[in-house]
């Protein structure tokens, strides 16, 4: 497996007045293609900062972020937008579907930004929602909305799926379904899946677990035999 994402001595500082907050302090790690990665840490550990930097929503103070051989840290606004469009499949805690568009339209909307042929119906089928294609987000349950959101992210065929507490707003049963889906994306389709969460149980299912604390990487553990999500002890 080849390295697809690399953080090299990444620092991120926020200034507020005279005070400097170090949100990311010399962070280094690599992620391989098709890996199922869980980034763990308590609130305020720097998980969100890491996600924002990797997702191209924020820029580093110093250091390098190399994705697919490209130096993301050197991108300007337009390049970042381009990067988000073609490399990152976002999955949000609150799904963030466009309420004015139906499930299938939410997915096919991506045609406007990536040069990929998207068959909305078959993508929906892959998350088991073919029959809900013409429903609006508000007519779907939370789990269904999150599945549409995954379908939307996958449809772009991005380098990675970047998931921010994807089960945070769901009950545990639905949550397992979603995580299961994400794991299978990684296992069956060789999609790189990165999940940011504070739920430590998920660690056992990951190929790689990156723990962060106080803006630093505390540990990186590679599971030789990750468990299946449904076998975890919820």
């Amino acid at each position: 497996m080849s390295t697809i994402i690399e953080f090299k001595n990444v620092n991120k500082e926020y200034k507020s007045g005279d005070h400097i907050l170090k949100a990311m302090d010399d962070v280094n790690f690599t992620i391989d293609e098709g890996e199922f990665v869980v980034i763990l840490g308590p609130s305020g550990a720097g998980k969100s900062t890491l996600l924002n930097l990797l997702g191209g929503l924020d820029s580093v103070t110093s250091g390098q972020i190399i994705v697919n051989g490209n130096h993301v840290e050197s991108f300007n606004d337009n390049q970042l937008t381009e990067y988000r469009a073609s490399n990152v499949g976002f999955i949000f805690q609150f799904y963030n579907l466009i309420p004015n568009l139906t499930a299938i339209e939410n997915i096919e909307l991506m045609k406007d930004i990536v040069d990929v042929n998207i068959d909305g119906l078959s993508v929906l089928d892959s998350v088991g929602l073919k029959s809900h294609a013409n429903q609006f987000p508000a007519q779907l349950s939370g789990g269904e909305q999150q599945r549409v959101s995954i379908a939307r992210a996958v449809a772009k065929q991005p380098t990675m799926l970047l998931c921010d507490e994807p089960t945070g707003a769901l009950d545990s049963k639905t949550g397992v379904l979603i995580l299961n889906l994400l794991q299978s994306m990684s296992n069956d389709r060789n999609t790189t899946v990165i999940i940011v969460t504070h739920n430590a149980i998920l660690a056992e299912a990951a190929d790689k677990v990156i723990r962060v604390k106080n803006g630093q990487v505390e540990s990186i553990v590679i599971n030789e035999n990750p468990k299946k999500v449904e076998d975890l002890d919820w």
Partner: protein
Amino acid sequence: MAFLGVYVFVGFGAESFGFEQTADTYYDETNLADGWIYTTNLDDDFVDKVNGLSLTKDSEKKLIVDSIADLENDPDITLHFLQDDDISKFYPVKGEDFNLSDGDGVWLDIRFAEARDLKIGDNITFEFNGIEVEKEIKGLGYSPEHLYQTSDSSMIPDYNKMGFAYMSHKAFPMSDVPYNVLLVKYTGNSSSYEKQLDNDLDRDYSSFMPRAQHPSFAEFQDETEQHKMMTDFIPLIFIIIAMLTLLTTMTRIINNQRTQIGVLKALGFKNRSIMIHYISYGFWMVLAGSILGFILGPLTLPPIMFEEMQQLYSIPYWLTGFDNSFIVVTVAMVALSALVSYFACRKIVGESPSSAIKPKVPKVSTSGFVERFGFWKKLSFNARWNYRDAKRNKFRALMSIAGVLACTLILVASFGCMDGFDEMKEWSYTDINHYSSKLVLEDNATDSQIDHIVEEVDGEKLMESAIEIKSGDVKKSGVVTVLDDNELYTPTDDDKNPIEISDDEISLSKKMAELLDVKVGDTVKWHILDSDKWIETKVTNLHSDPTSQGIVITKEKLDDLGLNYTVTSVISDKDVDDNFTGVKTIFSMDSLTDSWDEMMESSMSVIYLLAAFAAILSLIVLYNLGLLSFTEIKREFATLKVLGFKSKYLRKLLLTQNLWFTTIGFIIGVPLGREALQYLWGTMGDSFYLKATLSFKTLIITFVIVYVVSIFVNLMFSGKLKKLDMVESLKDNE
């Protein structure tokens, strides 16, 4: 918003009511006559008879005569020789008060004196009917009978060329003054008084002119009506849009504060204090805006327009008007916005803190009728998103459309006015009158003098005499134009095509036919103002004239009817500037069109002012509504941005909706504006006739303004789109 609404409403209102109140006060103060009886044999017997009528309150005789002042360019001065000065009094502003016992002095038109640089103490000589009088200028002032002064062919007042002068009967060179006008004050309305005159005096007079037909009074009355129409109608649209926008805004502001209200409730604040806080928040702002508008409107707007009007009308003072509707509208503005805040607030406060603290569940989009068609699938996501967004926020969509519509309507009506003026000019001075010079003859010009002039200038004879015309109870003044194989004067039809009037025809102008409510084949009664011979004729056809209403016949027809053919002017296609005996004034086509242009210019400022307000109105409405919708869709846009959509894409998303609303508003606004314009022409006065047409230029200008405003509003939001903080917007759970 509250400020602008009240400002425009009260400001324009103060102007139009000011017109009315100025006229009323001025007419009251000078005791303007209720009617004028013209007759050549105004002896004591006649006066006694009139005074004997039960409806007559007061009367006063005077001699009104046209004269020429012995100054450069022979200005026309209307002389008034007074027996008394109680009715239609002279209003002095400089020098001595009018003195009846002073036979050496003259009280002159102040506007004329200013134009000619004449001072009190100067001597001035007038010539009329072969008589010359030289008097000393004792005072300068205004006359209620000369609010609006025009000479025979000039359409706008030119104070350099005309004026009036008041003198005592003692100033008349003969002891026996040949009085020709009896001013009367009477009770009841003009038609009942005229009936009494007819019955008791046996029609022993040439004509009776009630106030409504007096040229000066009527012109100002028309102007007042016109302003009232403009200033009732347009500010009303304004205030309605302002109110609706204000109300939507207030509701939304409070709804946006929903979670905060919930928090306050959860913290244990009393419902009452929460309500007071949120209601007073909007209340004070609206109150401040309204009061500011209420004060500034009348202070700033009327002076701008009065200054224009001052050029057209001779009035010593202008009053800023007041009407109770001003207070009603202002109070309604404040009360309504408070009420709307109250209801919006009560709804939230009424909920339990736990539900109020959560944001309101957004309205659900649903598939509708349109989606069932095949073409829906072919639409871009942009179009689909915008269609559903508009559908989900119908009120906001309608308000945006209404704002653009009102703006378009006002612009079309305003610029359409300019088109109309241009069209009238072209029609009147190119299609109908196509001479180069018009020589207006003296009343006493002899046939041989006239023939000489015709020969010298290679001209054509034209008779244009003032007439009274009636059908049933409706009586109007107009003009009879008598043709004698004229080639330089061509009657036209509605499409401005020349028409031939044959010897057996009586052609009535279309506007006059409308005023009298007659059709071809109906009978009208009319008489030339100088004679009391009434004639009954059948209308055989109609012609159209934008500025002169009445009858057109040929000389042969006039002879048949037994009326005298009196040539009033000679028209020629040569540029004539020699003075002939028997000629009162010479008008060149250039001077006529110039004065027309000048008149148009005076209307410009009102038009520009209205156009500017219309643009501001739509700008504010669109921005306001855009801002509200922006806070609602901020999160959606942030999501799209995170997903990799470019700012350009999002801008287009917003622009599309704005352009849709703008286009719909524009498309509906244009025909409505045309209707408003048609209505406006209708109120222009009895002598004007025009069908509302819009030039391509007007449409283009309106289109450009409306769309520029729309795109400008969009630009204001594109800055916000760029600054949209993706991370921040995604954090809050809505």
